């Protein structure tokens, strides 16, 4: 690069450095959105009705109780899902997205045959249960969830 080119680019660089102090002021002026998360500690137990096998993973799914507005309002907006190895006590940290909807519904079903599908055709009957957390929002939630409905999806149990 010649001395003339260096001089032009160099003076431009000096001018650019003079404005570096403004970068911290920009902060998050260019942010696209603010994601608001409400952290919830879930503690409790998931139990199946008496007589059902004690083993088999339990799939726990968390939903907003309601979401959307006007004609787009609907119940059960999915948030996240996790598994516990067998029915029993569990604890889980939920990062609840406050902009996704209102309320909290916890649904669980036991995968007795391990096929990952609730009541697949020709397979065993599997139990499910659901509970709505009230009051909400709170940071600490204690729940007892009983799985006593055979082959029921969350939409079959909520709204009650």
């Amino acid at each position: 690069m010649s001395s003339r080119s260096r001089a032009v680019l160099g003076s431009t660089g000096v001018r650019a450095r003079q404005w570096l102090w403004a970068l911290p002021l920009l902060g998050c002026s260019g942010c696209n959105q603010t994601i608001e998360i409400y952290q919830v500690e879930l503690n409790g137990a998931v139990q199946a009705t008496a007589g059902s096998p004690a083993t088999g993973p339990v799939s726990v799914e968390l939903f907003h109780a309601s979401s959307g507005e006007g004609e787009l309002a609907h119940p059960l907006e999915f948030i996240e899902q996790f598994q516990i190895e067998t029915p029993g006590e569990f604890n889980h940290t939920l990062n609840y997205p406050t902009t996704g909807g209102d309320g909290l519904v916890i649904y669980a079903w036991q995968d007795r045959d391990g096929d990952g599908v609730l009541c697949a055709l020709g397979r065993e009957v599997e139990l499910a249960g659901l509970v709505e957390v009230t009051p909400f929002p709170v940071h600490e939630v204690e729940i007892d969830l009983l799985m006593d409905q055979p082959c029921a999806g969350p939409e079959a149990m909520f709204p009650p």
Partner: protein
Amino acid sequence: MHRCTGRLLVFLAGAGFVLHPTVRAAEGASLPEHPAFDMHGGGSKPGSWAGGMQAGFPWQAVHLQYGLEDGWTPFVEVSSALLQRNEPSIGLALRWVDRPRVRVTGEVLLGWQVQTGVLAHSGPSMALRVRAAAWVGRRIMPYTAWTTRHTLLIDRTALETASGTETSLTAGPRWDALGVVGVAFVLSPRVGLELGVEYPRTDGSTVTLPGVHLGLQFGGRP
């Protein structure tokens, strides 16, 4: 339909102007320094400048550059898709191949991508572009340009816990690519007209419909 017809008429008028006798006098000009060659081949000779405007669907753009020595050319550029995705940038071009009839140039651009509408977002972006152009005869110059643009989309996360609220910034990448193939015509020693077709790739996985544009290039020495 009316829009397409209008563009076709403009193109035909431009092509007719190319064949006009007054334009033939321009053939004596030094073609390698023609603004259309500088714009589409990339870079300008030291001390000369070139500018360009293009209008089409969906892309519009304005570009202005000034040639330094040793093949370096700084430029400013604003491109827009339907005035909904706007990309102002500053850039620096370096001529890699600089022959009388062939030019290949690499460019780096720094700027900002601002998209409005239902999928609004904005963030700083960096783009790399390769341009190539060659004269066919003395009035026609096919060209191509390929751009890869990487934009940083920044979000703020507010995490409310039992002990208080913590905020943090997270950034996600977005990748857009744009290929352009076109042909430019000499209108006068300082003015060129071009027709180009764009092949965009939006947000990485989305292949969008091709675009088409008409452009004018102009320039000279200050």
